[in-house]
């Protein structure tokens, strides 16, 4: 898992200084203002190359009571450790989660495992907005089956506070009494330093970068949740805050800063998660994105099994594929299902990257044995049906 600053220092000769905050960038002089938080010391540190990897910060709702105690976000190792400590010590019985995305769903599982009573408030008509609504209903069903009370189409309006502590979440429809609140409303790029230094920003306020991860200011690079990516299928800038993307950005920036030649290859928006035993995966463009782009497309949704139907542990799987209606090229895939479902998305990420058509995907030579899939893999079944509607 995490490597310690000492390991970086001794094994790789990387001078890591924790509890040191950079408070300003002076790109003209090529230096940054550093504050040693433990020694109250401040100085200018010169650089030849500067990498901005300041991450993202959780969106805080601008509603009454949002500063009350008992409202948490989890976006760093420290914030996760802090929340777990609070759960262990004060044993809250009830939690309200605001936001039905990755963080909200993953935390719903964590709270359920602790035997807590969990409600989830989401202003959209569906959970997991990165999937189409007809796929998200399966996630909503699974959440409900596991005891989560879902409140969709309900915006957060305020927190009711007593003695400085949150007591209830007020939505557009109701008041939900609770012991703690978990915020999962998404993140925004943490780019205050870049903005103050007049380093141009782009998509959703992320630092604008080219494919080498160079900003528009000489000698300054950006990577990770604070930086833009571009979509492989559209070529357009997109902001994706995911650890995988951050690592890929970092490798490219690191290589280029060291005098090498590396180029970021873009994202498809591939992501997987799990809520209890239900696996969720997506890649490529979803219906909402294709409609916004004005693309003509066809889609097919199928239900099948994760393993041979008679095999122990075989579970349900839903697959949705989307393809260009003129060329037949697969543009997107979404999967919701039991164990073994999610990582099938990697086949589709590879297929989309290679520009395969639905017909070509239906002809792929995929592995089969009863513990792993039905005779026809669910992807093959979906692609075959989709190919009937697309060339």
């Amino acid at each position, binding site marked *: 898992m995490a490597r310690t600053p000492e390991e970086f220092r001794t094994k790789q000769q990387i001078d890591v200084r924790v509890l040191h905050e950079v408070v300003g960038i002076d790109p003209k002089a090529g230096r940054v203002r550093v504050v040693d938080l433990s020694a109250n010391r401040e100085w200018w540190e010169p650089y030849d190359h500067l990498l901005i*990897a300041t991450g993202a910060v959780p969106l805080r709702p601008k509603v009454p009571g949002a500063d009350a105690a008992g409202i948490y976000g989890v976006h760093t190792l420290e914030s996760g450790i802090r929340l777990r400590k609070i759960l262990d010590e004060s044993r809250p019985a009830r939690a309200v989660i605001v936001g039905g995305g990755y963080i909200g769903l993953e935390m719903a599982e964590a709270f359920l495992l602790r035997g807590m009573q969990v409600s989830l408030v989401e202003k959209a008509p569906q959970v997991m907005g990165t999937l189409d609504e007809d796929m998200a209903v399966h996630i909503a069903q699974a959440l409900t089956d596991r005891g989560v009370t879902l409140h969709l189409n309900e915006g957060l309006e305020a927190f009711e506070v007593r003695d400085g502590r949150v007591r209830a979440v007020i939505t557009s429809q109701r008041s939900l009494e609770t012991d703690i609140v978990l915020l999962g409303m998404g993140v925004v790029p943490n780019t205050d330093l870049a903005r103050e230094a007049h380093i141009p920003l782009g998509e959703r306020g992320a630092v604008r970068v080219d494919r080498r991860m160079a900003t528009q200011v000489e000698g300054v690079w950006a990577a990770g949740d604070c930086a833009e990516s571009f979509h492989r299928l559209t070529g357009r800038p997109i902001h994706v805050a995911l650890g995988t993307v951050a690592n890929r950005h970092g490798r490219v920036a690191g290589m280029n800063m*060291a005098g090498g030649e590396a180029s970021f290859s873009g994202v498809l928006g591939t992501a997987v998660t799990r809520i209890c035993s239900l696996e969720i995966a997506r890649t490529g463009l979803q219906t909402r994105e294709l409609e916004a782009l004005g693309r003509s497309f066809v889609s097919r949704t199928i239900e099948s099994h994760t393993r041979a139907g008679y095999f122990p542990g075989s579970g349900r799987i839903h697959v949705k594929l989307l393809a260009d209606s003129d060329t037949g090229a697969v543009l997107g895939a979404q999967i919701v299902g039991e164990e073994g479902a999610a990582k099938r998305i990697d086949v589709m990420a590879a297929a989309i990257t290679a520009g395969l058509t639905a017909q070509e995907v239906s002809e792929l030579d995929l592995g089969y044995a009863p513990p792993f899939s039905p005779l026809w893999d669910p992807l093959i079944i979906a692609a075959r049906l989709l190919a009937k509607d697309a060339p």
Partner: protein
Amino acid sequence: MGTSKKVVIIGGDAAGMSAASVAKRKDPNLQVIVFERGPHTSYSA
């Protein structure tokens, strides 16, 4: 090209530490400093 250049990285999480590791591997003479305001670095790279 004998003089060693200096790379400063703001943030010691996934992107920052990946970049630090790759840069140092590519050019061992490079001086790499990472400033992280929190108490931890994260993610192996």
